[in-house]
């Protein structure tokens, strides 16, 4: 079991404070949902966990199994087992999906001192693509270039299945997906569910949580986790909406 611990995290972007003291503990084997209205710091938290250079941590600590995560660069965090499924995956022109996936996998295998078997990799990649209902031609396309929104999200999940991280953050992966794509994406995330995998599902809507049942639900509001609980919290949000959070937890 691995443990990701966030304590008293404060952060800003371009001098604007976004997070005002976030505490959160996640273990592998658990699925956490992070909900809240837009603009209150959900994506910021995901980006800070991954090490986005634009965000500045001004206070607090993040540790991964006791190791100081904030001291690691982005590459090291990935190699340590962190994964971010991007809300808006960037296009990398001229780099094929196949070349990218193979090299990424190779890097992660090297961390464990394992040499890649290319034939086995290709076989696995084909199976994963079939599982995610992706056309086999994707392997020859340039990474995310000209992909539809749904295709980009599937590509994120394909990378998730390929790299098999310990902790994955899903930054509004469900946004903009039709119900079929949402089911496929959820199926991908659920496949990894095990004692060796932990996830933070960041979402604005409760819909995705019908397909991926969370163990814990947190509500991030005005840069703080204002309440945590189980799926009853999702139902409360569904019935009462975010106004309820606003009334109950607003700090002026």
């Amino acid at each position, binding site marked *: 079991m691995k443990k990701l611990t966030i304590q008293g995290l404060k952060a800003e972007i371009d001098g604007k404070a976004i997070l005002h003291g976030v505490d959160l503990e996640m273990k592998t084997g658990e699925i956490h949902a992070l909900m809240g209205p837009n603009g209150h710091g959900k994506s910021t938290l995901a980006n800070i966990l991954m090490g986005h250079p634009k965000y500045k941590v001004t206070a607090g600590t993040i540790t991964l199994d006791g190791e100081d995560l904030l001291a690691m660069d982005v590459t090291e965090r990935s190699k340590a087992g962190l994964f971010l499924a991007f809300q808006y995956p960037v296009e990398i022109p*001229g780099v094929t999906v196949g070349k990218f996936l193979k090299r990424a996998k190779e890097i992660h295998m090297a961390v464990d001192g394992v040499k890649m078997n290319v034939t086995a990799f290709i076989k696995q990649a084909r199976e994963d693509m079939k599982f995610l209902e992706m056309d086999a031609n994707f392997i020859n396309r340039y990474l995310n270039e000209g992909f539809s929104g749904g295709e980009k999200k599937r590509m994120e999940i394909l990378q998730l299945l390929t790299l098999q991280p310990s902790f994955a953050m899903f930054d509004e992966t469900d946004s903009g997906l039709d119900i079929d794509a949402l089911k496929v994406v959820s199926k991908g995330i659920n496949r990894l569910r095990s004692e060796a995998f932990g996830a933070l599902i960041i979402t604005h809507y409760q819909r995705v949580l019908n397909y991926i049942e969370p163990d814990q639900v947190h509500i991030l509001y005005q840069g703080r986790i204002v309440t945590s609980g189980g799926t009853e919290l999702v139902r409360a949000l569904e019935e009462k909406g975010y106004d309820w959070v606003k009334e109950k937890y607003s700090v002026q």
Partner: protein
Amino acid sequence: MTKAATPVLAPALEWPGRTNEEWHRSRLDRFALETRKVAPLGKKTTQALPSDPQWAGQLRFIDGALAGAALDPALKAQGVVFGPLSDAPASVKKFLAATEALCDTRASSHHYQALEFGAVLYIPANLVVEKPFLVHITETRNGGLTVPHVSVQADRLSQAALVVRSDSPAHTPFTSHSATTVELADGAIFRLCDLQDHNLEAAVLDHSFARLGRDVQFFHWSACLGGGTVKTRFEFSLEGEGASLKTHGLYFGIGDQHKDLRIATTHRAPNTTSYALYKGAVRDRSRTIFQGLIEVSPQAPRTDAYLSNKNLILNDGARADSLPQLKIDTNDVKCSHGSTTGKVNEDEVFYLTSRGFSRDEARLLIAEGLFAELIDEAPEPLREELSRRVEDSLRSPPVASGSP
């Protein structure tokens, strides 16, 4: 063609001065056109090259001498001329005289005055040649001047492709003053691929010209890889209605390379189109200048022209200038250009590093990706080599200061 064919106009022309718009970013003295002498030709030992199924014909020049030649006999029987410049038919000689008359400075006319050797490709009317021709020019002479010329004439409704490679593997300083001239008659379809890979001591000057007749489709693909100091100009003249031009170019700067590249496309007839895509990357202390000029004359309504130039700056100290320019003298046109110059996109770097790539590897991957779109359109026999060559240039350790 020999030096005897001294042009009438040439003596009247001046060397481009420091105020010359095209030249003022480059130093003419680097080419030593007045001091370097045409080196004696290499030994003339022309051999028949073994037939290579990739090419319709091959010409191999080493130090100005024709070292090898091959031409599909079936094509020869159908009237294809592919050989040294001395084989040029009268129509090609006439065109050569015409391009010489277009020289606007002594830096251009010098090529014709000093013209040393070259190749001619003539494709007769209606003939479709599937495989490309290859002209490969290698220079090993030290300290001199080499002046090669490649002249292409494709007759009505013919279809063919030519690859011109120039290189100088040894690290010897010299000047190459080359030109390629292309005349495409009505309905011709032609692809020209130009691969310049001289050593880093070489000074490379080139002034090329293409004339496109009615309904011609011309695709020019170029890679400017080598040379210490490089100054090139390619003029495309769209003279027949419906002519269509596509130009793709890649270049990069490494070490102390200085590359000043100009393409000038002139639309002179109605309904002509041009699409230009040029990409470069600079590293170390190198500098590239891309000058992209599109001119639309009053006789060219319904022109559709597009020019794109992208430059990637890989480290501080390297410089890339992008100078697109439109001159439009008629109303009914669609003309646009786009130019981006900058460092590697940090969002792309973040994405790749979040998947475990190191920062350095991420930047290289992005840079290689920039060129992939161009390499995908290069002639098939060259693609793999070009990918490798681009990769090597981007990944090799910094070139130390000291080359010219």
